[in-house]
C-alpha cells in the first residue's frame, strides 16, 4: 500500500479541507499519515522518512505558502528522499495572482504538482494514480 503524508505547512491553521482530503485519500486506498495544521516543513520530511512514504502532500491556504515551501525539495534531498513525489495545493500566495505564474514558481521549487484553489479531490486522486503508474515505468511523473 502506498503511503502518503499530508499536512498544512507553516503557521497555517486551515485544517478542514486537508482533513477531508486525507479522509478521501484513505478511502481511495492509500495509507495516510496526517500531520494536521501548523506543521513545519521539517516535520513533513521526518514523518516521510519514518513511514517510508511515497509522497508528501502539502496544503497551504493562508498566503504565506511561498515563504514556507522554499527549500522543501532540498530538505527532502538532505534526508535521502531525493525522488519522493511532492504535491502542493491551496491558496499558495498572497492575493489573486495568475495561476500559471504561481504554478511555475512552485514547480521550480521542486514540487511535482501544484493544485490551484478549488481543485477537486477526485482530480488529485487521479494525479496520484497516474504519477505512481508513471513511476513504475521509470518516469518522474505522468505527462500533464
Amino acid at each position, binding site marked *: 500500500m502506498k503511503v502518503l503524508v499530508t499536512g498544512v505547512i507553516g503557521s497555517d*491553521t486551515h485544517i478542514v479541507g486537508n482533513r477531508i482530503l486525507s479522509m478521501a485519500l484513505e478511502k481511495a486506498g492509500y495509507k495516510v499519515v496526517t500531520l494536521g495544521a*501548523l506543521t513545519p516543513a521539517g516535520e513533513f520530511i521526518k514523518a516521510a522518512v519514518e513511514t517510508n512514504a511515497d509522497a508528501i502532500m502539502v496544503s497551504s491556504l493562508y*498566503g504565506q505558502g511561498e515563504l514556507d515551501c522554499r527549500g522543501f525539495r532540498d530538505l527532502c534531498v538532505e534526508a535521502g528522499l531525493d525522488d519522493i513525489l511532492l504535491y502542493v495545493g491551496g491558496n499558495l500566495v*498572497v492575493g489573486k495572482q495568475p495561476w500559471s505564474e504561481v504554478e511555475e514558481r512552485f514547480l521550480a521549487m521542486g514540487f511535482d504538482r501544484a493544485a490551484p484553489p*478549488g481543485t477537486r479531490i477526485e482530480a488529485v486522486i487521479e494525479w496520484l494514480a497516474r504519477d505512481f503508474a508513471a513511476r513504475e515505468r521509470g518516469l518522474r511523473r505522468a505527462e500533464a
Partner: protein
Amino acid sequence: MNAPSLPDATRLPLSEARIADDVFRGMRQDNLARWPSGADVDFDEAVDLHKRLPLHKQLGWVMRKAVAERRCLTQPRGGFGTFEMQRALMVALDNEGLADIVPTTTDSYTRNEQWQLAQKGLEESETVGRSMLNGYPMVNYGVARARELIEAIDKPAIMLTGTTMPRLTSEIAFAGGYSGYLGSGIAYTTSYIKELSIEDGIRNYQYLDRLAAMYHEHGVELHRRQPGFLTGTNIPPSIAIITCVLDCLLAAAQGVKNYGVEMGETLHMVQDAAAVAACGELCQEYLAKKGHHGVFTPVTLLHWMSAWPQDEAQAAALISYGGTLAAISGAASVTTKSTHEAFGIPTPQANAEGLRMTRMAIYLARHIRLDGLAEFKREKELIGREVRAIIDRVLEMGDGDVAVGTVRAFEAGVLDIPWSPNRHCRSRVLPARDFDGYLRVLDPGLMPFPRDAMAIHEEALRKRAEREKVPFGPDLAVNSVYEISEPLGKLLPDQWE
C-alpha cells in the same frame, strides 16, 4: 514552532479571578521585554493618546452609538506585510469602502509570536514590493508606526490577530491608539492552534482582558471582542453562543465592560436573526447570574466563513446577502469579505467594493425585523435551551469557576468545537446543513444537548438525506462544507431533467 508558554512553577492555579495588580505588573514587565519594540510601550502616555482621540475614532464609543441608533456598522479585514502597503490599505478601506471600522490583520508569523520569521518576511516584502506576509507585522513595526496608521484614517481601528498569543501585539496596538481587539481564550485556542492547551489560551487572554480593563480604569473604554465564528465551518449558533457566553464571563471577571461577541452567518435568514437575538440575551443572562453588571455586549455577524465560490458574481451575491442578513438580524456590525475570497487576500479595491456592496444591502434592509415570526421564536427558544444545558454543566464542572469549568469540560468533551485543529479539543461534534437551510448538529459527540433538541436536529437532517437520496451520516457534514462554493450550474441548474 508554536512557542507554547513555558511551564512556570510560580504561576497561580488557573481561575477566573481578576489578576492582582502586583502580579500583573510583573507579567507586563516580562511580556514587554520579549521583543525590542516592547520597550516603547508607556501606559500613561498611551492613556493620554486615547483620551485625545476624537470620540468617532474610539471603537468603544462607536459600538455603543451603533446600538443606540440601531445601526449595523461595516468592518472588513485587511493586512499587508509592509507599513506603506498597510497604510494605503487602511486609507482605501476608510475612503473608498466607507468602512465604519478599519482593521489591521496581523500576519501568521506574528500570530504565532515568530517575530524573527515576520522580520524576514517584512524585509523581503519591502525588497520585492509585494506582500509576502498575509498580514501586518505589528510587533516588528512597533508603536510609532502604529500611531501613524491611526493618524492616516478617520475611523476607529481594530486589531484582528487570529491568535492564542495576543499579549505583546495588544500592548503595542493599544499604545499605538488602536481601540479594538478581536480574540478570546476559548474561541481562538480551539480554532487557531494545534498544540497550545485550553488553559494556556485562557491565561493569555486573561492578560489582554486585564490590560483592556486597566485602560478602562484610567478612563479609556476600549472595545474587546470575541470571535465566536470559531473554525468558520458550519458552526451551529448554539455552539458559537456557548463560547461567546463563556469568553464574555472570563473577560467580565477581569473587569472588561465593552465586549462584543461575534458569530459567522449560517446563511439562513431566520436562524441568523434568532441567533443574534439569543446571543445578546444569553450573554446578559449569564453576566447577571455571575454578578457582573454594566457589561455592554453588542453582537457582530460575519459574512460566510467557510469555502467561497470562485465565480465573482456568485461571491457578490453572498456578500450582498450577508449584508442583508446582518441588517435584518439587528447585529451592531458586520464583518465583510470580498469577491476575491476564494483566492485568498483581496486587493484594497476589491475589499472596498465588498464593503460598499454590504453597505447598500444594509441600507435596503435596515428596517426589516423578523421577531414576530413563529419560526423565529421557535428557533430562538431552541438555541436558548441548547446553550443553557451546556453552560450550566460547564459551571457545575468548575464549581462555579468559568476558567476551571471550561478546561474540564473540554477534557470531558462536554465542550467541543467542529473541525478544530487543536489536539486538546475532541472535535467529535459534527454539523451539517438541513433540507431547509438551517445549520444543525449531525453528531453531538459528547456534548450534553437536551434530548428533545437533538431529536429536532436529527429529524431535519434525515429529511435532507431522504430528499437528496444520500446516507444519513458524515457525508452530510462533508457535503455541507463545500456546498456554498459549488458552481451555480450544480446548485441551481438551468436545465430541466
